[in-house]
């Protein structure tokens, strides 16, 4: 009997892999190669012809203080967000796994920030943080923390603007981290927790000596996602502050966008965007190594 296609495992493997390979080549490899090519050229919105210029774009980027500021902001933005996302994600995960009356409502509310389109939710935050009509200011005024007619200008002051951007971003990403860590918490055998109870451990000892160490590899994965999403994110910055005031909230992704797309200097935009790559690569490798070193089981 002749061999059918279904018998040829090697060929089938290629066949089934093909769509994802095509997808990765078309949507990851090609744009990446294009970015490198553009970064070495003088392509701009006004003059799309390709001329090789070597490292000139990078030299100009290095001379630009806004680039250094964006780079620093990106690290601040990512570092603080990541810590908050992991810690709050763990707290929310505890709420997600808990069994209580009305838990479905709480679960729904916990997940809501993640399921809402970022553009919409950022716009509602834009209103909440409005310079004059901010409801947060109303509340502060009501309790006497602000004098009558006083405003905090959430998005108008450098420190507060960064705080706002981080807060909104954390608010948005925490549910994702919570769901990932919930999977980790649920995977801890009930026996282990009950054994700790029988062994005489109270709530905090069980939390810090048993649950957190066991959930650590999963928390590292949540942190990786958090870092990658934060590092490459510009939606919150774009909607809330457009990088302002005075580039105080400018991050690499938004700066690349303003330079390359809005400013029309595609070559420079590409050069700035390329800086995301080594940093992301380093973050991914670092966290994957942590995961392997912990090797709980």
């Amino acid at each position, binding site marked *: 009997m002749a061999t059918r296609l279904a018998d040829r495992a090697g060929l089938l493997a290629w066949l089934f892999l093909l769509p994802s390979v095509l997808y990765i080549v078309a949507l990851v490899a090609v744009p990446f190669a294009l970015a490198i090519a553009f970064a070495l050229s003088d392509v701009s919105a006004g003059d799309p012809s390709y001329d090789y210029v070597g490292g000139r774009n990078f030299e100009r980027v290095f001379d630009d203080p806004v680039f250094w500021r964006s780079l620093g902001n990106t690290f601040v933005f990512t570092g603080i967000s990541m810590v908050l996302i992991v810690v709050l994600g763990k707290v929310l995960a505890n709420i997600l796994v808990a069994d209580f009356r009305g838990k479905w409502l709480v679960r729904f509310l916990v997940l809501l920030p993640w399921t809402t389109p970022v553009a919409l939710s950022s716009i509602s935050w834009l209103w909440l943080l409005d310079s004059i009509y901010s409801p947060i200011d109303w509340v502060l005024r009501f309790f006497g923390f602000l004098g009558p007619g006083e405003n905090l200008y959430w998005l108008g002051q450098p420190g507060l603007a960064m705080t706002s951007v981080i807060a909104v971003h954390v608010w948005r990403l925490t549910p994702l981290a919570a769901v990932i860590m919930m999977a980790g918490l649920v995977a801890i*055998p009930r*026996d*282990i927790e*009950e*054994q*700790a*109870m*029988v*062994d*005489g*451990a*109270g709530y905090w*000892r069980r939390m810090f*000596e*048993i649950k957190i*160490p*066991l959930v650590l590899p999963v928390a590292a994965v949540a942190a990786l996602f958090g870092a990658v999403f934060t590092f490459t994110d510009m939606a919150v910055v774009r909607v809330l502050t457009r990088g302002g005031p005075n580039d105080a909230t400018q991050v690499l992704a938004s700066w690349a966008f303003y330079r390359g797309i809005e400013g029309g200097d595609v070559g420079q935009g590409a050069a700035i965007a390329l800086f995301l790559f080594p940093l992301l690569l380093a973050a991914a490798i670092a966290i994957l190594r942590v995961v392997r070193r912990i090797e*709980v*089981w």
Partner: protein
Amino acid sequence: MAVVEVRELVKHYDGGRVHAIDGVDLSAGDGEYLVLLGPSGCGKTTLLRTLAGLEVPTSGDVLIGGRVVTRLPPRARKIAMVFQSYALYPHKTVFANIIFPLRAQGVPPEERHRKVRWAAELLDIGPLLGRKPRQLSGGERQRVALARALVREPQVFLLDEPLSNLDAKLRASARDELKRFQAEIGTTTIYVTHDQVEAMGLGDRIVVLAAGKVRQVGPPVEVYDDPADTFVATFIGSPPMNLVTREGRLVGFRPEHLLPVEDVRSPDRVSVPLAVDRIEYLSGDRHVYGVASRIGEETRVVARLPATVDTPIAAGETHDFAVDARRLRFFDAETGLRAEPVRLEG
């Protein structure tokens, strides 16, 4: 003195639809090895978890060391529990696993180390102290779990099927080890199992449970020889007790007491013609299956002939068997409970 006592214990789940424990009274004396035996779903594990404080009973009380602990959390009960899975903390070394309950109790550091060394020596796991649980074999894990239970110097050990994760060969030696360990420590132990061999081998007394109720409590010999009802009679023993209906009663006899008539020396014997249909050879014994008559309604029964009985028996023939009358047990056909013995002719 009773170290552990439960009074009229009831545990319902799902708003009373499931009766996991349905009015249980029990007590275990000082140093006693009490085995809770029953089929899965009989409530034995729920009972053990209630003793540990992992479940709160619907009603009734748990007393440990004469003190009512029903509402107390596990850590206030002076108990140690070994789970079926051993539940070793996978991220901690053997040493850190064993010392964990001592740290949780706030035992001073020198005292902790002294106790860990003592437990490690007793269970012969000194060389394993630096390893992680995943690097241990099943038997080693059991010993580590026991050491962790031991260092607390509890009033009671609660063991939940600790042998069921081991392979058959290891199980026998681990069972022996458990028994010797308890004899050496002398701590009251409550042991849950569905395996009657473990129960018979380990228990000072056996508690037979079914559907959340205690069917019988007694030493292994008593539970085996004088079952309180047909459930115990057929749950314990392999093959189980034969039951034959006769005039509103059930006549019960163990397979090893149904022997060829010439091997029953007692003058007071009841003869049972057996239409043999199948014979099995199992570790030297012959299990003879067939239909018994005369002793009651015709019923399929099993006889277990020890290797010392060499009467030739073949499938297809009817052979004269007999039971020593003193070995017969009688049960009420309706309730299944033990009934007064009657004299059978034959």
